[in-house]
C-alpha cells in the first residue's frame, strides 16, 4: 500500500475517507437546501427547504415523460450533445475529463473496497483481492491518461487563447488547476513507483514514491470532496441536474 507512510495507517485512511465523504454529503445537502430557497413555480410563494428543491426538480425533469428524461440523460448528460454542437474541441476535452474523472473516482472507490477486503481478509479473500487490485492497474492507466489529456487541453485553452484567458477567474482556475494537479501528481507517483506505462522507468524513484502517492491521495480527497460542494466543482452535479430539469435546454 503505497501511501501508508509518514505515520499513516490503514485505519487512519479509512477514518479520513469517512470524514471527507461526510463533508461531501453535507456539502451537497447544503447546496440542495440553498437551491430550495427558490419557489416551486412561476409566481409561487417563497419557501426554503431541501425537499422543495427535490420535488421541484423531479416535477420539472419528468414534465415531458420518462422517455424525454432518458433521452436527455443519454444525449445531453452522457454524450454532451450541446457541447458538441458548439465546439468539438471543447466536447473532446469535456468528455475526456468527465469520463476520466468519474471512472477514476469509481476505480478509487473500488480499490478502497478491495483494500478493506484484503486488510481484514474478509471471507479469506485477501489473495484474490490482491490480484484484483493488480488487474485494476490498466484501467487506472487508461483513464488516467484520458483525464490528463482533457485537463491539459483545458489548461492549454485557458492559457493560450486570449479571449478565454481574459475571462478566466479564480473560480475557473481553482477547478482546472485542481484537476490538473490531482492528475499530474497521480501520474508522478505512479512513475516514481516504477509504473512504466508509456514512459518507461526514467522517473522511477521508489523511496519517495509513497510520499508522493500520499500527496496525491490527500489532494484528491481534499480537493474533490472538500472543495466540490463549495467551488466550481459543483457544476459536476449541478450541470447534469440542470440539463435534466430543463429536458435538454432551449
Amino acid at each position, binding site marked *: 500500500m503505497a501511501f501508508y507512510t509518514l505515520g499513516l495507517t490503514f485505519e487512519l485512511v479509512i477514518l479520513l475517507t469517512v470524514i471527507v465523504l461526510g463533508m461531501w454529503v453535507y456539502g451537497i445537502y*447544503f*447546496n440542495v437546501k*440553498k*437551491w*430550495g*430557497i*427558490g*419557489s*416551486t*413555480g*412561476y*409566481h*409561487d*410563494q*417563497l*419557501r426554503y427547504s431541501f425537499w*422543495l*428543491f427535490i420535488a*421541484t*426538480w423531479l416535477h*420539472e425533469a419528468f414534465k415531458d415523460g420518462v422517455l424525454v428524461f432518458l433521452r436527455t440523460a443519454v444525449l*445531453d448528460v452522457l454524450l*454532451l450533445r*450541446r*457541447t458538441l454542437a*458548439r*465546439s468539438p474541441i*471543447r466536447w473532446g476535452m469535456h468528455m475526456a475529463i468527465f469520463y476520466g474523472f468519474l471512472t477514476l473516482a469509481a476505480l478509487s472507490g473500488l480499490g478502497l473496497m478491495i483494500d478493506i477486503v484484503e486488510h481484514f481478509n474478509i471471507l479469506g479473500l485477501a489473495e484474490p483481492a490482491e490480484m484484483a487490485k493488480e488487474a485494476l492497474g490498466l484501467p487506472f492507466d487508461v483513464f488516467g491518461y484520458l483525464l490528463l489529456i482533457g485537463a491539459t487541453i483545458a489548461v492549454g485553452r485557458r492559457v493560450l487563447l486570449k*479571449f*478565454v484567458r481574459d*475571462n478566466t*477567474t479564480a*473560480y*475557473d482556475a481553482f477547478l482546472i488547476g485542481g484537476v490538473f494537479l490531482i492528475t499530474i501528481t497521480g501520474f508522478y507517483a505512479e512513475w516514481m513507483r516504477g509504473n512504466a506505462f508509456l514512459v518507461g522507468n526514467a522517473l522511477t524513484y521508489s523511496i519517495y514514491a509513497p510520499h508522493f502517492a500520499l500527496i496525491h491521495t490527500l489532494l484528491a480527497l481534499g480537493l474533490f470532496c472538500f472543495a466540490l460542494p*463549495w467551488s*466550481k466543482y*459543483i*457544476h459536476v452535479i*449541478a*450541470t447534469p*441536474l*440542470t*440539463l435534466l*430539469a*430543463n429536458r*435538454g*435546454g*432551449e
Partner: protein
Amino acid sequence: MADNNANVSSDRSKKPLMTGYMMSTQLLEIDGCNRCQECMKWCPTFAVRPDRPEITPMYKNAKWRQLQSRQHGLRAKIFGEKPLNDDEMKAFTEDCYACTTCGVCGTVCEAGIRTVELWEAMRPNLVKRGDGPVGKQSFFPKLIKGDRNPYMAKQEERLCWVPKDAKVNDSGDIMYFAGCTAAYRQQALGVATVRILNNLNVEFGMLGKDEWCCASALVRTGQREVMAEHAVHNIDALKDAGAKTVLFACAGCLRNAAVDWPMWYEGYIPYETMPLSAFLRDKIKNGEVEYKIPLNYRVTYHDPCHNGRHLMHLKGKDWAFEAPRECVQSIPGVKFQDMVRNRALQRCCGAGGGVKAGIPDLALDCAKARVNDAAEIQAEVISSTCPFCRLNLIDGRNAAESSIKMVDIVEMMAASMGLDTKIPENPYTKFQSQDVLVCTPTECKLDTVERKAPGKDLVGEAH
C-alpha cells in the same frame, strides 16, 4: 432630501437579496453554469459593449452566486451574513437590465440553462428589493394600468384605423389581436392585415376596446403586478368572443399570449395562438393568395426573438422560422437572402427586454449592428414580423445613415396583392412613423413616413 436618500439607501442595503421569484431549479442553474464562455460569443449587447463583460450571462450568473452566498453561503452560516453593498447592487442591476432577453445565450448554452426565464426571474427580485427597473421602464406599470396601453391612447379608439369598407366582426372562431403598436403607431400593419384577411374571405373578429396591452413590457422588466390583470382580462375577452384561433402580427404580443398569459390564468384556454405568417403561409400554399405587383427588391428577413427563439420549442421551428420566410419568398420580384446570423442564432435588434426604454443608446448600437448585418449582404429591405424590431431597426438605420428600409412582411404581401392599404384619417395619424410601400397599379416604391407630432413617445418601446 439628501438625508432621505441616504436613509432609503441604507434601508435597502439591509434588505437581503430576494430569491422568491426564482424557481429552485433556476437557482440550480446558477451553479450549473460551467463558464464555457459560449454565451459571450453570441450576446448582442456584449458585441456592442465589449468593454463590459459583466453584462454577459456568465458574469451575471457569477455575480448572483456571489451575492447570494453572502447570505446563504457556508461562510455566512458560520460567521454571519454580510449586508449587500449599494453600489454593487446598483452595478449588478444595470448589468442585469443591459440584456434584451433575446435568448441566444440559452440557445447556445452547454448547460441547457433557460436564460430568458432566468433573467426574467432575476429582475422581479431586483424590483422587489427596490433596485430595478432602470430608466423609463419604471413608467410602464402606471401607463399600462392607467390607459391599458403604453401610448396614453384611448381604448375606445383602438379600431379607429380600420377602413370603413373593411369587414371586422366583434367575435368569431378567428380573432386578430393587433397589439398597441399596430393600433396606435404602426397602423399600416393593422390596415394591411385587415385587408389581406378580407381579401382571402377570412371571417375574423377583433376585441376593440376590450383588447388590452399584452403587458409584455412588464414581464420583460420584472414588473409583474399589473401583468396578471392584463393576462386574465385578455384571455377572458378572447374566450368570450368565441376564439378558437388567435392571430398575431406582433411577435411580442404573440410571445406573451402564448407563453406568459397562460402562466397567470387558472382556467382552460380554448384557443390556439398563431403567428399571422403561419396562417398566411397556409393560404399561399393553398393557392388562395393572388399577387399582382412585383416587389423588385433585395430582401432579407430579421427573425424577431419573440417569434423565433422564444417560440421555436412551443410552436415548432417551422412556424418560428420558415413560415415568415416562405411568405416573403412567395412575393413576385423579391430576391431573398438570409443574413449570416439567422433563425435560432439570429442577432437581436436590441429593443427587447425593456432595453429600448431603459438604455436607449445600447438598443441603438445593437440596431446598428443588425443593420450592418443586412448591409453586408446588400439588402435593400429588412422584412420582419415585429413592430418593435422594426421601430428600433429604423432608428439604427437612421443612426447608421443607411438606405435600407424596414417593412413588415404583411405589408409587403398586401402591397404585392394590390390591396388598398390607405390608413383612414384618425387621431393617431400624426404619430405614424415607419417605412412604407407606396403602390401604383403596376409598381410599388419604398418610402418613409415621418412622424408629424412633436416630441417622442414617453416610452418608445414596450416589449
